[in-house]
């Protein structure tokens, strides 16, 4: 069974995180109160469209976004029982790599083009661990083997341009794993790659999770990738998490109208052109002036008066399955959307 580890210790807890960017046009409220938690060896997928705040959430956990313009307005990020919102840059440098590391969407730009792969790995290893140069080099070779790069002894002397996109992403994963972090954040790790290479990388992440019991936050907009890897899913829309649940809850029993529409907008394998795709009319709201009520209200087919006025509470659909939608309120008159498929 996925995620059924005996030592279910909590790695990360994010509570009511709010992140804003101060721009000339005003305050962009990119993340407007996000909460979730993550246990050891668990894969949490954060899905949503571009601009929904999923990457900002991830970058804030690493505190990678420059402050200013970014600003953590409120909330806490508890990583290994320590709130890192107040951590200084010096403390963060220790936390990054040791406790949490990240792989990015674009493996082409994340490596230094003028440095050999081995040197870059050694640099990362020596920054965090007390190893001699030779030991660090051996460790680098071991890591490249771990991510299934053939001939690591020769490969470490090569430069990034001699690696293909998939291979570079493997190097990035090796680097992220160099200090055995408890938490790995993968921000669209396969978006820039072709499907056959994507399959290789997803396979590798799965293998690493099983070997090292690392918790993974997988940020993606590809629901197929989510289905193949995630234990739990958080669906984000307009800076808020609208629905969380296990992978099965989300795919087979979605409750929030946005999640439902998102799933229906994908053509399934047995569909042909006689069935029309469901499309969501309109576009996401502008986060310079976010709506007071539900962010999805203006695009929602079940929208009620209250949806525009008050942001919905978190309603329990099931154990571990939570959805923020007024339709789930006991007093809601219309046929409930929750529960049915």
């Amino acid at each position, binding site marked *: 069974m996925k995620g059924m580890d005996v030592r279910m210790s909590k790695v990360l807890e994010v509570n009511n995180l709010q992140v804003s960017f101060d721009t000339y046009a005003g305050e962009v409220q990119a993340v407007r109160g996000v909460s979730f938690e993550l246990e050891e060896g668990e894969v949490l997928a954060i899905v949503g469209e571009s601009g929904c705040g999923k990457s900002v959430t991830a970058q804030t956990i690493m505190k990678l976004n420059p402050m200013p313009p970014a600003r953590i307005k409120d909330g806490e990020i508890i990583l290994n029982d320590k709130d890192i919102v107040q951590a200084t840059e010096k403390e963060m440098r220790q936390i990054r790599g040791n406790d949490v590391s990240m792989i990015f969407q674009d493996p082409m730009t994340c490596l230094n083009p003028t440095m050999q792969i081995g040197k870059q790995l050694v640099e990362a290893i020596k920054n965090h661990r007390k190893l001699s140069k030779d030991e660090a080099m051996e460790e680098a070779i071991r890591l490249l083997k771990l991510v299934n790069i053939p001939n690591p002894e020769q490969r470490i002397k090569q430069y990034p341009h001699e690696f293909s996109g998939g291979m570079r992403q493997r190097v990035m994963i090796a680097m992220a794993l160099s200090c055995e972090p408890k938490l790995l954040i993968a921000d669209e790790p396969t978006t820039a790659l072709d499907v056959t290479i994507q399959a290789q990388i997803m396979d590798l992440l799965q293998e690493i999770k099983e070997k090292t019991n690392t918790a993974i936050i997988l940020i993606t907009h590809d629901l197929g990738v989510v*289905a193949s890897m995630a234990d739990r899913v958080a669906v984000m829309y307009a800076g808020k998490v609208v629905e969380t649940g296990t992978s099965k809850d989300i795919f087979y029993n979605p409750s929030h109208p946005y999640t439902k529409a998102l799933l229906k907008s994908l053509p399934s394998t047995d569909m042909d052109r006689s069935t029309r795709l469901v499309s969501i009319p309109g576009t996401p709201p502008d986060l310079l002036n976010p709506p007071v009520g539900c962010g999805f209200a203006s695009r929602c087919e079940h929208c009620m008066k209250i949806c525009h006025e008050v942001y919905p509470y978190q309603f329990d659909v099931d154990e571990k399955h939570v959805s923020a939608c007024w339709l789930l309120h006991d007093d809601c008159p219309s046929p409930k959307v929750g529960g049915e498929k």
Partner: protein
Amino acid sequence: MANAENKLLEIKNVSKHFKVSEGRLKAVVDVNLDIFKGETLGLVGESGCGKSTFGKTLVGIYNPTKGTVLYYKEDGTPMEINKKTLFSYSKMAQIIFQDPYSSLDPRMTVADIIEEGMIIHKMYDKTRRKERVFELLELVGLNREHASRFAHEFSGGQRQRIGIARALAIEPEFIVCDEPISALDVSIQSQIINLLHDLQKKLNLTYLFIAHDLNIVKYISDRIAVMYLGNIVELASSKDLYANTLHPYSQALLSAVPIADPDKETQKKRQILEGDVPSPINTPKGCPFAGRCPYVMDICKQEKPPLEMKQGHLVACHYVKDK
């Protein structure tokens, strides 16, 4: 659908090579293909396999290095596409580009962008052209008021609609859709797919739909061609290709696509290809897929398999038996 009299384009031995410092880059190699009126032909493959180059060759942006493209006019007479006929052909064939951000001129209003093609092809008078711009905007789901705005004022999905209106302005028969949705968000993608489908029915258009998202291609296409290193390795109807995938590359490609269904995903045996797509520069002889193929035989490294009819598919593979 595949009716010989209905041929719109006949592509004969088309190759497109580029000269690069390391040698010759063979982007498209000996492609033979017919495109029929009113159909959607899907073209799939990994990045760098030559699918966009092929699409651009079909609308005359590139001249083929070898081979010919024949266009069948309304009365059934073929016209070869060359420098002389390119202008009249360009009225029949248009392209929708992948990136709606860089394919619209930022200094032109939407009306100018849509009208430009009609001016070049001397269609209609000035007042009728203005009316046509409004009609086209409404056809693709935008408003009249949008005509005087600039491209940067629109979202990605709206820009793609402008790109579609621009392509439709000169009333083409054939449209190459070069990854029209890969730059868009999931919820916007289905809007554009539905729009393209409606327009096809309304205007009797023929599409070459290039994409790497195989689920979308299966949904929208009548037939699908799979391309690898500039070669078409398999061509079959959309249903057949998925029900009975023959070429080892097509099999790997299809099994690599993740499905949005956790149960199916855990049960599915994913066939993982070793290695990467080889460079299209100075390719070795033999089958282009030989280096990564799990069923490779000696003959595969010696002789390039021809694209032939096997089990109802056109497939280029020595391993696939004809039953």
